[in-house]
């Protein structure tokens, strides 16, 4: 159990459960016993090396708790976790050399020093050979376009710059498994695109396994071959994104702004008119991604009215989770 097999799965979880005792405010001594809350409930899954997995679920579904058990920060209440073949709690220090983790809301950089120095310190912390460290740092700096921010104190970086720096910091020691918790939260569209492109290139070159939590459907579409969805601590879906959308029948919404107000639009098969705003200027049309494409619907609409502007709303993850949950019982 203690010696890792070289070809062990990146993550191997069986019957993983974690409960937290919640103490109620004390009114009288010994009035009420501590209540147990199940954060992760009998979770079993396996992530093979080289996979790219989106780990999704609503807030409080148990995503962070799972990640903390995968990385050795939390001890499971019961069940087994093996990360790159290691026991994350007992072999935490060996594991730290082999995984990279970014928690979206926390920093692993030294906020009052120039960014470059954080990379130097982290190279020392991971005992990288100086030549290797230099090569890897310049590779990451170039690919993440950080050359201009390298001499800026971390506290002065913008959110997008800081997130790129965090990801570079997590990848500096070339980990086999990269775990990203909400990497694109709060980023503008361009920063998101660049980050996704970088991650795709990095994985293509180094074969890094990726586990990603996100609320952004775009992240999943672009980055993940497989989705694991948790709800109330239990696994409710394991498969591809199109499969998920098919399962829940999640619809996309086409929003069109018209040149002149129209009270109603003609009906199109398989499309639901959700409503209009601005006295008939803006219309929202829900359609099933399986049967219709956005382009086909737009063409159909444009035959009847002049469309000035348009937007497409993707199903929100919370929505999808809720549908799955309702469908399941």
């Amino acid at each position, binding site marked *: 159990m203690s010696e890792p097999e070289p070809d062990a799965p990146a993550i191997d979880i069986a019957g993983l459960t974690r409960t937290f005792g919640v103490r109620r405010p004390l009114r009288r001594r010994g009035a009420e016993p501590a209540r147990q809350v199940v954060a992760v409930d009998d979770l079993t899954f396996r992530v093979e090396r080289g996979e790219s997995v989106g780990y999704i679920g609503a807030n409080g579904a148990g995503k962070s708790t799972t990640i903390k058990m995968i990385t050795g*920060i939390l*001890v499971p209440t019961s069940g087994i976790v093996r990360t790159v073949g290691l026991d994350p709690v007992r072999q935490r*220090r060996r594991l730290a050399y082999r995984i990279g983790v970014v*928690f979206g809301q*926390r920093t*692993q950089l030294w906020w009052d*020093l120039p960014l470059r120095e954080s990379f130097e310190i982290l190279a020392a*912390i*991971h*005992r990288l050979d100086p030549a290797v460290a230099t090569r890897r740092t310049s590779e990451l700096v170039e690919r993440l376009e950080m050359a201009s921010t390298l001499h800026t104190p971390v506290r002065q970086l913008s959110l997008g710059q800081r997130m790129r720096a965090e990801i570079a910091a997590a990848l500096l020691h070339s980990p086999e498994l990269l775990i990203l918790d909400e990497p694109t939260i709060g980023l503008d569209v361009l920063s998101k695109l660049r980050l996704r492109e970088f991650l795709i290139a990095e994985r293509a070159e180094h074969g890094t396994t990726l586990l990603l939590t996100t609320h952004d459907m775009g992240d999943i579409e672009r980055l993940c071959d497989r989705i694991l969805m948790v709800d109330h601590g239990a696994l409710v879906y394991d498969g591809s994104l199109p499969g998920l959308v098919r399962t829940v029948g999640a619809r996309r919404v086409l929003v069109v702004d018209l040149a002149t107000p129209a009270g109603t639009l003609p009906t199109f098969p398989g499309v639901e008119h959700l409503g209009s705003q601005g006295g008939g200027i803006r219309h929202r049309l829900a359609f099933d991604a399986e049967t219709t494409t956005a382009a086909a619907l737009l063409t159909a609409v444009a035959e009847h009215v002049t469309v000035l502007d348009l937007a497409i709303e993707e199903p929100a993850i919370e929505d999808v989770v809720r549908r799955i949950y309702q469908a399941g019982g």
Partner: protein
Amino acid sequence: MADSVPAAAGRLAPYVAVVRARIRAQRSYRTSFRIDLLGSAAIGVIEFGEVWIVVHSVGTLGGLNVRAILLLFGLSNLAFASGNLIAGHLDQIPTYIRAGTLDTFYLRPQPLLAQLLISDFQLRRLARMTAATTVLVVGFGLNDIVWDVRTVAVITMAVTFGTAIFAGLFVCAAGLQFYLINGAELTNAFTYGGAYAAGQPASVFTRPLTLFFGYLVPVVFTGYLPTVAILRLDSPPGLPSWLVWCTPLAALWVWAVALLLWRLGVRHYQGGGG
């Protein structure tokens, strides 16, 4: 330090890198750094003034005269200031937990406690050490001290193991703070309170206090016992003079408790029982 023992230097490299970074960061805010230094030195001076005024007006305190008090204060304060330099920031654990800094430490391949000890090396604490050293040197000059092997051994022991005792007390406090998220007030009683008690002649303590600071939170080993040994004075009941040779044992005791509390605290944080 590195060339003769490359293996050891390699092992220390991660720690050296972090400490050097902390120092660079503090030096980059020059004004604030200077004010910090002054503030720390001022605290040392004020604390000493407090003891000085008491002893000066009563002549002797617990069998020690003003000159002996200088020695006592210098020894215990130097030990406290050094222990504080090493581990004083550990009382920030609740802040580290809230900010998620602790989770970041879990993701690095060094022992957690070692990472925490070096995570916030504060140069301003050197000012406090300097103030304590000054008082100690003056104390050496004003007292009739027989400079033999025994005296040097007692002083060396008092400073090194005294530092270990205070650093250990900070680790104890940190371990407890995993349980008591707002428990700094309680644990400060042992760390800063211990430092205050260490600056007093133990002969003025009541019997329970003597036992408490002599054996449980053994800060009398950092100031009073070595002072009595250096000046070859009589020791009070409950604290025999040979006890000074047990200073390493006192440090060992504190660290045994410290590592136990730390382990329990970390297991509590990870939720693995304990």
